[in-house]
């Protein structure tokens, strides 16, 4: 094998020197809804959607076809966790973990006897051990010492280092285990995007302060805002009032002349991609340019169209000007 999981053996990856196979990543989801115990992320104090990253050996399957109670099943599984060649059991002198995934059927059976996951960890940890005497000479003094309790060497330093989760389908035959890779510990963190409005696509065609400030507030919370600027730039861009940074922070800039056919075409081309468009031109000019709500809403029925005017969209003052650089006598 020359190329393993994108790595060239002996060149970009040293790990392939010592292991006959390499897996770049194993991804599986904890079935939180059916788990009798609090999900792993919650136990670790991470709210919301979370990912746990764990440097591990490959998965080991543990099969049991006769277990009918929690304790005997846990002890049987634990014996499968502790074996001499496992990375955690062998060279991890500082710290290590072992990951155990139970199918929901087994989890339910175990939880009937052990409603607290801490007790499950305790039983597994206690049973997942090997006699010191079973290690070849040379292992007994140094490498395995930190996990030695009495005359036995445990798979990890403490019960907290046994990570218990519920995953897989509704079968009742298998558990999976993964000893950690040497001195390494898993990390659980919020997954993906931390900006609350990330993914919200906003087109800001507005001018002056009030209209553009709408999407500034949205951009503050992660919305993807494109600000359309007229050729030469927004009137605030160079203004001595220094309002520009208050209005344009965290937006993107695209120059387009909305009074031209090309500029209006550009907006219409973007509309299918948009969640929100903000305008502050008078209705009459919007209709002329084909940028009114009727036109854009027909292109994208999900479009949220924010029309900023001076006095509101109806009533006796509706046509009075007061905002918008297009204001013409």
């Amino acid at each position, binding site marked *: 094998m020359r190329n393993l999981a994108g790595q060239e053996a002996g060149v970009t990856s040293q790990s392939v020197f010592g292991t006959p196979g390499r897996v770049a990543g194993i991804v599986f989801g904890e079935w939180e809804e059916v788990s009798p115990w609090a999900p792993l992320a919650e136990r670790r104090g991470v*709210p*919301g959607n979370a990912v746990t990253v764990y440097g591990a050996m490959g998965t080991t399957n543990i099969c049991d076809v006769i277990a009918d109670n929690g304790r005997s099943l846990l002890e049987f599984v634990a014996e499968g966790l502790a074996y001499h060649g496992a990375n955690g059991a062998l060279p991890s002198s500082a710290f290590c973990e072992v990951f155990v995934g139970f199918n929901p059927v087994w989890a339910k059976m175990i939880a009937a006897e052990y409603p607290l996951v801490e007790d499950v960890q305790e039983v597994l940890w206690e049973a997942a051990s090997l006699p010191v005497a079973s290690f070849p000479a040379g292992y007994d003094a140094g490498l395995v010492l930190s996990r030695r309790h009495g005359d036995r060497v445990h798979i990890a330093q403490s019960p907290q280092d046994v990570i218990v989760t519920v995953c897989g389908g509704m079968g009742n035959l298998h558990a999976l285990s993964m000893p950690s890779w040497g001195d390494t510990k898993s990390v659980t963190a919020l997954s993906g995007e*931390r*900006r*609350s409005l990330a993914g919200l696509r*906003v087109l800001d065609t507005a001018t002056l*302060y*009030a*209209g*553009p*400030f*709408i999407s*500034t*507030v*949205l*951009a*503050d*919370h*992660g919305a*993807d805002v*494109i600000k359309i*600027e007229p050729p030469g730039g927004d009137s605030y*861009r*160079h203004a001595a009032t*220094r309002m*520009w*940074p*208050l209005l*344009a*922070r*965290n*937006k*993107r*800039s*695209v*120059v*387009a002349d909305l009074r031209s056919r090309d500029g209006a*075409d*550009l907006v219409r*081309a*973007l509309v*299918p*991609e948009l969640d*929100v468009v*903000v305008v502050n031109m008078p209705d009459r000019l919007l209709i002329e340019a084909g940028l009114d*709500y009727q036109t854009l*809403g027909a292109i994208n*029925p*999900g*479009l*949220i*169209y*924010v*029309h*900023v*005017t*001076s*006095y*509101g*969209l109806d009533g006796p003052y509706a046509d009075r000007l007061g905002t918008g650089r297009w204001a013409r006598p």
Partner: protein
Amino acid sequence: MTGAADGPPVLASVPVGDAVTGYVGAFGVLAACYHRMTHGAGGQLIDVNPVDAMLQITGPVLSQHKDGAPPPHRLGSRLAASTLRGVFRTSDDSWVTVAASTPRHLREIAELCGHAEFDGSGVPVGDVVPRVERWVADRKRAEVAAAFAERRLPIAPVATAQDVLDDEHLRARHAVRYVHTAEHGPVAGPAPAPRLLGSTAELPWRTPDLDEHGKTLPAVRDSSKLFS
């Protein structure tokens, strides 16, 4: 409603209406997003304007107004129901805000400032404001603040922009952020409000160069891939 009772109406020297309208508009966007997401609605037209927005700010003036009575008038720095609420100049040419929110505040501020006459229940008789004005005018800002603080009476120095930048509380909370701009260099501005503690993000805190993202314009025309 802004301005001294016997003076002309005064406009604010910052565009309050625009900022309030911006927040009202952002709220409208989020409400429409929620409606679309949760109730299966489509998009919609949102009517945002400074009149509706600023009516929220002037709500108390409308609610205080009674048919047939003269409409509420300017009160300087006071609220309609307050007897002591104002801004006073100190001897070192600074300003402090003093406001009595409870009967104890009013009684003890009046005592501190040398007001002599109180009724049976300890309420000062007559106007205490001139007393407070004179007492504050004879003292430096730090002295005034210390005397109030010692008696657990509310006082707040009127902050300049520099005071805001230097304030230890605001600094600790990073309430002021610097926006990096090609046109003006780094410029101070407010941090995002409100703070979403579960999803706060460090953003690229800068303004775009002119047409910085317009380079993808041909692609937009062809395939609407500006957002990617």
